[in-house]
């Protein structure tokens, strides 16, 4: 009972501080900042991101830090094992595998990213319109997608190769001709779900047109799943490229991609294993990096998993 404060002047009415009560003390956190905080906590995903940064940096500078060019033959030094001179060894034509690996990284990453971005663009537009318009439009658009999806992938690629000839462009086209369908389905699902939300209705009552609703409201709110799909499309494309090159449907020499390098290296596996080892390892590392990043993004961007 001794806690009774005995100061009379403390017992005067001073009233509320209502304007204070409206104040928000927490620092402003956008969705992306908050997602980043979550992503950062995911050790594996951060490792993947780091790995990816290293791979991209090496793709940018790798070919320049050795004095050998990726395409120059040096038959005197063919099939050298890794050494001080040739860090990853040389191939059957004496080309430096280190230089070729990073040159290949450029092409593999380029194919992966280009394919993913094209998927993204087509997928967003197709899925966005189908989902937003709904009804018959949706039915027809999605039926077309289903039909395309039904054609065997490899068949389509071989036909394209025959018609257009082998090359980088054909390769990317081959991958995206059906690749966007997955993205379109994701976007459509998101849009269908979002378009009845009250904030979209509010925008409609304000007189917003379809374009505004799609690009200001529906797509930004689908960005989470879109981004996850995107990060998971890149490794698929890289793998597909490698696989096609392996089958001999890939790029023409002297262009190097990890796929062509691995394909060249395979027959020599017994005697010169480094020729397969390096490109194969980097394919695996890249696919691994993108996959863990994708998983990390999924966790960080899904509000349900976050709360």
């Amino acid at each position, binding site marked *: *009972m001794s*806690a*009774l*404060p*005995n*100061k*009379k*002047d*403390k*017992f*005067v*009415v*001073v*009233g*509320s*501080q*209502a304007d*204070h*009560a*409206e104040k928000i*003390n*927490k620092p402003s956190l956008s969705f992306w900042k*908050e997602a980043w*905080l*979550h992503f950062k906590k995911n050790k594996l995903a951060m490792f993947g991101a780091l790995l990816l940064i290293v791979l991209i940096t090496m793709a940018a500078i790798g070919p320049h830090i050795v004095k050998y060019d990726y395409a120059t033959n040096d038959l005197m030094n063919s099939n050298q094992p890794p050494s001080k001179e040739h860090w990853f060894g040389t191939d059957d034509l004496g080309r430096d595998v280190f230089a070729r690996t990073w040159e290949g990284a450029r092409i593999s990453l380029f194919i992966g990213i280009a394919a993913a971005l094209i998927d993204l663009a087509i997928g967003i537009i197709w899925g966005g319109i189908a989902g937003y318009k709904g009804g018959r439009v949706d039915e027809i658009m999605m039926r077309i997608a289903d039909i395309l999806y039904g054609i065997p992938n490899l068949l389509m690629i071989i036909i394209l190769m025959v018609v257009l000839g082998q090359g980088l462009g054909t390769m990317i086209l081959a991958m995206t001709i059906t690749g966007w369908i997955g993205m379109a389905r994701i976007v459509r699902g998101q849009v269908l779900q979002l378009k009845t939300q009250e904030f979209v209705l509010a925008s409609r009552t304000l007189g917003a047109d379809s374009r505004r609703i799609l690009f200001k409201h529906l797509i930004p709110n689908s960005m989470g799943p879109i981004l996850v799909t995107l990060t998971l499309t890149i490794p698929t494309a890289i793998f597909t490229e490698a696989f096609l090159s392996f089958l001999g449907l890939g790029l023409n020499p002297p262009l190097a991609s990890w796929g062509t390098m691995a394909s060249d290296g395979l027959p020599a596996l017994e005697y010169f294993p480094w020729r397969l080892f390096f490109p194969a390892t980097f394919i695996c590392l890249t696919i691994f990096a993108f996959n863990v990043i994708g998983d990390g993004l999924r966790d960080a961007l899904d509000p349900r998993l976050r709360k």
Partner: protein
Amino acid sequence: MEKLLEVKNLEVGFQTYGGYVQAVRGVSFDVNRGETLAIVGESGSGKSVTTQAIMKLIPMPPGEIRNGQILLDGEDLVPKTSKQMEKILGQDVSMIFQDPMTSLNPTMRVGAQITEVILKHNNVSKETANKKAIELLELVGIPRAEERVRQYPHQFSGGMRQRVMIAIALAANPKLLIADEPTTALDVTIQAQILELMKSIKKEVGSSIIFITHDLGVVANVADRVAVMYAGQIVEIGTVDEIFYDPRHPYTWGLMASMPSLETVDEGQLEAIPGTPPDLTNPPKGDAFAPRNPYALQIDYEEEPPMFQVSPTHFAKTWLLHPEAPRIDPPEAVLKNRRKLAGTFEKPVMVMEV
């Protein structure tokens, strides 16, 4: 009256990305046998967390029971393991949730969901359990119960599903039934039926009920006693008459005054409580309600008020009851209903604990 549940100085917190949330900050109260205690307070004031702590349903991590005791029939639940709690949940304490749509298993027949609980806690045959399930459905007012037990939840309306939830909660004759906003999702007409049902159950089964709501009309209807929570603390507790006819805490005044009443044809404005509730990661110094309180004293901004007792059953946590404090009359809307109640002390007494 005999105490069934005693909660003493309960503190619960959550570790979140935004910081440590002090969701419940030293809550103490009792529940007597066969009575209904209503807990009111605004969203985020810690009503659900308090009751989840009693059921040990706080997700740990991120949550933790930092301090305090929860005595059920004199036995402390806080140190119990989840294995030990399994015996108690359903058997001694059971819970009804707000959303009748998501708290039933959509792929299981309604009858099976009830018998599951009966079989778990009682050593009876399947047939007896089935019979009991039908009895329970009849008890909660579902017609043609023998047919209904074989149906799935989607064949029931929202109000009926909530009745089924109540039947499940009653399946093991719990001593304590915790209802977390059981009628908020329902229409007034169905709400009225559920409230009547809960009252008749209290009479027939003799369970104690903790009823969480933020609807004061519902409180007036079901409660024997009322606890008012604000920012993780109980700021006032008393019998239902004491809270409605002689409230002492300025937050309770604010709540009463912000409701329009049906009979008065009011022309003036409603008395809104200004501002928003405090952020519990960083509760303000002193009285947490002070910044929104038009009657706040200087000391409210400096020191947390103690509990004052105004009758054998009525407590309020506000400096306004201190002998040094100026005499302040509640707002008109409260004054209008104020009554002199038997048993009120001449002068409030400062107490350390409830």
